[in-house]
């Protein structure tokens, strides 16, 4: 055996032992046998011994440039020089370079761009100038134990190569020269070897005029600071110190929420008065959106202001086309830039830093792998679908397969010295881009329970051939037979879960009986059953463009509870007697049996009302309702109820292929507000009733009065357009919004209303008795109390309200737990969360379908500027509810400047774009990146020089916003 080994060029075997720690800190020993060889080429063209071993490019052509310091020579570069000055090596002045294996590995591990450069130089572009010397496999240059006590391991390996080559090349009169970057390193190595030089020193001594260019180039690099790795983040305080701080008030706790515009900025709301502290850059200290953190205020001289700059990870990625995402310390990353906002001192806000994490909100995240540039790399960056979550570093061997899939990743921890949290791959959802996968991602991301209903839930259902039975009563108040009333329902086209129906009947001189009949869901969904538990968990029905995720099984939601036309159904009725001026004389509530005469659509109902020939009971009833609703509406608006706008878009779906065919523009009909008015009336009446009966456990809905400060964007925007917004009261706000009409820009009013919506917080469910009575009010609707009663098929809150009302009027038993405030609060927390998630999911689904809709299409549309930021404008396209960012590159050359104060874009001093002004944009789908097709906006009018790329704020994956 020995003989064979010798013949094959193996000199000896060294046992190479290394110790390393894995990411959780465990220590491992790795022992490998290293076969040292004697047939590795030194690379010198003239060398007789090595001539058969390789290509040997060194000094094949005599170096035409002489160096003042050394004679014939070859250069051994160290890794620091290569990493910092890799561009320099393009120059043919530097020839006969040896890259040792040690240096190669070092560069590869530390800097991907330098590695790529080095790779192409050594094996493609400059093969004749470079030689890779396998020093760690050469029997003369590698030794396990160290010979030089004072040198670092790297220097030692470099030096032993130099010493070997020196003796090896003695008769050829060639000296190896070691080029280093570090001063100390040079000093140390000079003790052992004569030819050690700085790269700069070497170039200075070149006898060639071209050297000046190189030196200039070096100077440019030198000034760029040495991006030292080490610890990036401050350490967290100990639990005890945080608790002490919280007790003494120096540290506050709150929820960490990242800005949707700028991922480097976040806010933490620290008390009930909604005081928020601003956090930026590294002060975020490894907090992830949603974490409960401990924050401490910075000294006032370190306070900063929000940058007013759009910073989205994917935007930066495209702008930089930075491909070194797989790299540990991206040196040219501007995440390390100090936020420039520091300059504008006058605008500073309370700025804090995160000093500890009280509770992580980490979950499993859906997303995809970012393509890596180094082939076969194990470490990858994972890009979560939710853009508020940072990139996550994971290790995987199967990056090739995963790159085309949506995957789920969990975060393990975030060490202080890592820019990204470390995580691991959990599972794959499916092929990227397929409808099922994307929907699945959407549902998972929004934490929407969407599994089919379980057996035990389905067991709770009544038989399909259910028949009403007037004799079964659950409480002292009997069910009333209202089958002879002319009741009808009005709903959108294609609605199968009809949960409300109306009737109106004149019963006397200027006296009307008006009834709202709501599906009696609680008759079927009894408390404590599996179906009730499931509904409580789901909280709401979720509507996606191509799918509906029901809260209740189909049999109930689309059949037995749905108040279909000409079918007998149980209902919960709320019946008023009112005058023609809508003064309510009396109100009564009871369970009933109804038979809807007609299930109409909004359009059909409008037609019937408008057609004077229609004179049947249904038509008369509808007209009565319409008349009363107008009175109600006028009264409500008079009280200061707000009319708000949002960007709701619906798709006309091709249900065969489940692709969007066209966008349906929502038409507003009087019948919409007619139904709405009576639903509001019913909700308010019921709220009053249940609050009166159960003042400490009624489930109500409130909409907090916004803080005056939160109106700032709206007031500013309106001021620039010459309007004044009064924010002192709801009434003032409503009136001043009504006054904001610009004849030249009919959309202005709607846009301002949209902005108003954004200034407000969401309405929430709560249990009576948990907040002070004045805070019960619903600001948007301008009423003192409010609840949800009218949609029990699709909202769980209504189910609870039904039970409360039934208990209050004696139509049903009081079930255990119903009157428990703590339980009610618990239910509220869940349905608030589900409700919000359902909204987000719905919007995300629209965005997803916008992308699908625009596949292969280009359309030019009108858009409106919703915001001007330092580096771009936010454009809203009402037709598709699409909001995107167009990034402008402002430069002196193009004459384009952005004035954030005035919210305008100027070209050569002239204002061309102002906030809330219309612009024309071209919409298309950018499929350059096959993995992530995204909707792209291009500015058509006004044309601006320097217009560059544009990005989709509403998320390329249709998620996030």
């Amino acid at each position, binding site marked *: 055996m020995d003989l064979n080994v010798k013949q094959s060029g193996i000199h*000896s*075997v*060294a*046992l190479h*032992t*290394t*110790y*390393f*720690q894995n990411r959780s*800190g*465990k*220590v491992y*020993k790795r*022992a490998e*046998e290293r076969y040292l060889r004697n047939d590795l080429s030194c690379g010198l063209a003239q060398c007789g011994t090595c001539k058969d071993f390789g290509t040997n490019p060194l000094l094949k052509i005599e170096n035409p440039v002489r160096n003042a310091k050394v004679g014939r020579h070859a250069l051994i570069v*160290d*890794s*620091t020089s290569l990493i910092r000055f890799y561009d320099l090596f393009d120059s043919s002045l530097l020839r006969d370079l040896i890259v040792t294996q*040690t*240096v190669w*590995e*070092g560069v590869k*591990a530390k800097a991907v761009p330098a590695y790529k450069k080095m790779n192409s130089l050594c094996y493609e572009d400059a093969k004749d100038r470079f030689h890779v010397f396998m020093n760690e496999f050469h029997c003369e240059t590698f030794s*396990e134990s*160290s010979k030089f006590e004072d*040198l*670092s*391991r*790297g*220097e030692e*390996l*470099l030096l032993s190569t130099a010493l070997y080559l020196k003796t090896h090349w003695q008769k050829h009169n060639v000296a190896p020269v070691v080029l280093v970057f*570090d001063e100390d*390193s040079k000093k140390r190595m000079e003790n052992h070897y004569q030819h050690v030089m700085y790269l700069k020193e070497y170039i200075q001594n070149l006898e060639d005029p071209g050297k000046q260019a190189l030196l200039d180039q070096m100077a440019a690099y030198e000034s760029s600071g040495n991006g030292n790795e080490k610890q990036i983040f401050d*350490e*967290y*305080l*100990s*639990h*005890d*110190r945080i608790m002490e701080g919280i007790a003494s008030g120096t540290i506050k706790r709150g929820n960490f929420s990242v800005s949707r515009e700028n991922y480097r900025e976040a806010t933490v709301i620290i008390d009930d008065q909604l005081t928020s502290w601003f956090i930026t850059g590294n002060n975020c200290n490894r907090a992830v959106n949603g974490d409960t953190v401990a924050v401490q205020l910075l000294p006032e001289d370190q306070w900063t202001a929000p940058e007013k700059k759009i910073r989205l990870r994917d935007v930066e990625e495209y702008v930089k086309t930075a491909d070194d995402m797989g790299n540990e310390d991206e040196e040219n990353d501007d995440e390390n830039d100090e936020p420039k906002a520091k300059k504008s001192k006058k605008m500073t806000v309370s700025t804090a830093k995160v000093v*500890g994490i009280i509770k992580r909100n980490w979950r499993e995240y859906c997303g995809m792998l970012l393509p890596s540039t180094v082939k076969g790399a194990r470490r990858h960056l994972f890009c979560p679908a939710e853009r508020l979550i940072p990139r996550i570093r994971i290790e995987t061997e199967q990056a090739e397969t995963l790159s085309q899939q949506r995957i789920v990743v969990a975060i393990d921890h975030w060490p*202080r010295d890592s820019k990204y949290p470390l995580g691991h791959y959990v599972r794959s959802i499916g092929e990227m881009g397929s409808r099922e996968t994307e929907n699945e991602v959407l549902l998972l991301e929004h934490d929407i329970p969407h599994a089919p209903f379980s057996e035990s839930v389905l067991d709770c259902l009544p038989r399909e051939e259910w028949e009403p039975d007037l004799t079964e009563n659950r409480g002292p108040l009997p069910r009333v037979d209202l089958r002879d009333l002319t009741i009808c329902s009005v709903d959108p086209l294609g609605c199968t879960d009809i949960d409300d129906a109306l009737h109106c009947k004149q019963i006397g001189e200027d006296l009307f009986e008006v009834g709202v009949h709501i599906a009696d869901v609680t008759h079927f969904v009894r408390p404590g059953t599996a179906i009730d538990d499931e509904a409580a968990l789901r909280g709401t029905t979720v509507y996606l463009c191509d799918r509906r995720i029901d809260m209740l099984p189909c049999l109930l939601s689309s059949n037995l509870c749905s108040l279909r036309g000409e079918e007998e159904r149980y209902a919960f009725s709320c019946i008023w007697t009112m005058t023609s001026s809508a003064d309510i004389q009396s109100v009564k509530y009871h369970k009933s049996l109804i038979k809807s005469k007609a299930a109409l659509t909004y359009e059909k109902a409008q037609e019937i009302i408008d057609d004077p020939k229609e004179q049947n009971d249904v038509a008369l009833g509808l007209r009565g309702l319409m008349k009363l609703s107008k009175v109600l509406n006028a009264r409500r608006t008079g009280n200061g109820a707000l009319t708000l706008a949002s960007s709701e878009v619906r798709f006309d779906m091709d249900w065969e292929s489940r692709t969007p065919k066209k966008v349906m523009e929502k038409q507003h009909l009087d019948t919409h507000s007619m139904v709405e008015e009576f639903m509001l009336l019913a909700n308010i009446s019921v709220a009053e009733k249940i609050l009166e009966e159960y003042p400490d456990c009624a489930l109500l809905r409130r909409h907090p009065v916004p803080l005056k400060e939160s109106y700032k964007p709206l007031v500013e925007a309106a001021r620039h357009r010459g309007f004044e917004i009064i924010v002192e009261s709801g009434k003032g706000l409503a009136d001043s919004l009504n006054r904001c009409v610009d004849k030249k820009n009919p959309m202005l009013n709607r846009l301002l209303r949209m902005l108003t919506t954004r200034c407000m917080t969401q309405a929430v469910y709560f249990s009576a008795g948990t907040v002070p009575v004045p805070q019960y009010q619903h600001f948007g609707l301008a009423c003192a109390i409010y609840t949800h009663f009218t949609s029990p098929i699709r909202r769980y809150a209504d189910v609870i309200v039904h039970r409360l009302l039934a208990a209050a009027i004696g139509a049903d038993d009081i079930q255990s737990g119903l009157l428990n405030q703590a339980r009610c609060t618990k239910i509220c927390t869940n349905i608030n969360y589900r409700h919000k998630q359902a909204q987000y999911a719905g919007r995300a689904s629209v965005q997803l379908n916008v992308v699908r809709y625009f596949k292969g299409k280009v359309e030019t549309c009108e858009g409106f500027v919703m915001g001007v930021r330092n580096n771009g404008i936010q454009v809203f396209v009402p037709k598709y509810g699409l909001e995107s960012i167009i990034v402008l590159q402002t430069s002196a050359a193009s004459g384009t400047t952005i004035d954030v104060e005035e919210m305008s874009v100027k070209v050569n001093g002239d204002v061309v774009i102002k906030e809330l002004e219309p612009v024309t944009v071209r919409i298309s789908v950018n499929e350059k990146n096959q993995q992530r097709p995204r909707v792209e906006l291009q500015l058509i009018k006004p044309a601006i020089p320097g217009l560059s790329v544009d990005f989709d704020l509403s998320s390329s994956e249709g998620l996030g916003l």
Partner: protein
Amino acid sequence: MEVHLSDDEKLFLITGAEANIRNDGRSCQDFRQIILERGVLSGTNGSCRVQLGQTTDVLAGIKLELESYDAETEKEPKQPINFNVDFSANASSQFAGKGGDEYAEELSAAFQAAYSKALDIMPNLAKTQLADGYRWKINVDISVLQWDGSVSDAISIAIIGALSDLEFPEGDVAPDDGGKVRIVLKRPKVAGNVRDENVQVAMWKLDVMRCPLLLTISKIGTANLVDCTPEEECCIRSQLLVGLAAIADSSENNEPNYDVTCVKQVGGGLLEMESIQEMLELAAKSVGGLYGALAKRLKNEEMRKPGHSFLL
């Protein structure tokens, strides 16, 4: 190996032993030849192979594990060494299948008992306690490859050999979040141009010279013997497993003293107190020589050429 002896053969061995002559020429307190090699398994943190006679062959390997524990609840340092003995089914036909499991467990427990005061026996073992919440756990795995009597003696020698071969990476304690610490391997040299992993880690070793040896003392007829061959084991009336460790301050009176760290009776038969006393005395007498030889070997052993496993 299974040994069957006739009554006459047994009588021959017994009377021989009583006359202090064994059939291979040894006296009662003589050991057979012992071969000890260290560093035989490159994958372990410390290893040792011991061969005894014709031949009992034992291989001990040590794996280190950086263990984190709750410093609040465990204030007292715990004995960090765990023993696990395994009999190869090839060692002897009596160990085929699960045959050796019970005996292996018994021996593991005996070693655990003999090393229960390990923190006192090895003065620098406390260093395995790196910081509050971190310690090295030492897992000693012993494989009995071949059986030719006196397995526990061979194992105890192999354990000492492996412990002396064991190298611990030095750890630096680095502060981490919330007042906790993290252990970072200490690399006295800076990396510079190479990856950290390739820079050697500083190592330290245990002082093993007071580790207990476990001797089996067998009673054959009226004689007490050390290191019995399988033939002799057929004639044994009773056997004691005696653990002995050198006492720290034995230098005052030139005679080194030994502590009995454990006594355990193996197999059947009854023993009188007097006989036990005699057997312990024999153990104490013979252990001195064995310690001396072991110390000399550990000092002078030349490490094998790297890259060659003991199988070659």
